[in-house]
């Protein structure tokens, strides 16, 4: 959810500056500088002309849609990857605890017992799955 902001911003940039789609025939040095320039101008506009807004008609053209399949990195993991994995696991655990809290609060608040039982059972089942997944990653 937080990550899709960068996909959106690509759409905005390509929509706002059509030069990025038409690929003018300058030499490569200049072509490499075009996107950088457009980023700068985009930020400039956002800062000084908020009226223009970050989203000029946010509709996405078919050819702009970023539907790329994510290619899994074929690069050796290096430089303390464990540290980031720990962080990732910790965040997941924190979220899980909060989710469980929310569920139990909901169960208390509502009178409809049947639904809540289902919810909680579903939650517990998923918890076991997630633990397994985490073990797999840590191994």
């Amino acid at each position, binding site marked *: *959810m*937080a*990550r899709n*902001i*960068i*996909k*959106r*911003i*690509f759409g*905005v940039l*390509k929509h706002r500056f059509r030069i*990025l789609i*038409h*690929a*003018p*025939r300058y030499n*490569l040095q*200049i*072509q*490499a*500088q*075009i*996107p*950088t*320039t457009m*980023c*700068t*101008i*985009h*930020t400039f506009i*956002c*800062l000084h002309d908020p009226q223009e807004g*970050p*989203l000029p008609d946010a509709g996405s053209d078919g050819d702009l849609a*970023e539907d*790329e399949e*994510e*290619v*899994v*990195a*074929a*690069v*050796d*993991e*290096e*430089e*303390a*990857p464990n*540290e*980031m*994995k720990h*962080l*990732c696991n910790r*965040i997941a655990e*924190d*979220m899980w605890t909060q989710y469980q809290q929310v569920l139990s609060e909901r169960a208390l608040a509502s009178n409809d017992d049947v639904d809540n039982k289902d919810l909680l059972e*579903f939650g517990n089942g*998923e918890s076991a799955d997630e633990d397994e*997944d985490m073990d797999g*990653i840590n191994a």
Partner: protein
Amino acid sequence: MLIIFATPPFYSKYVHLPSDKVSQRIHENPKFWPFFKDAIGALDGSHIHATPPALERAAYRDCKGLVSQNCLFVCDFDMNFTYALTGWEGSATDAQVFKDTCAKDLHISDSKYFLADAGYPSRRGLLIPYRGIRYHLAEWGQASIR
């Protein structure tokens, strides 16, 4: 003209890495706070069309069959760019471009990180999703009912 915009001081005035302050958007959303309090932006690559000379065209052919350059961008949660690295051949993978960025000038302070997708290596300063795991099972179930 391009050079004015793409080089300091104009470039560095408007496109610079965010401060270590927690973003307002993260703070306001109970789904993100406090889990992502150390996230300072999102990072991803995008292909931008290019027209290289015929000799180099093979290197610029990307995974979708177009001729493009691979660019890496970082943005903050307010839809502003904070970093851009452009000019890599379209055949380069996202991870390769990221490696180059780290070698050049992307410095991520300790304990802070960017959100990235599974195309990037797991390393300090990058938070990537778990591999091969389906997210948001409950939400997806509901979506299909709707």
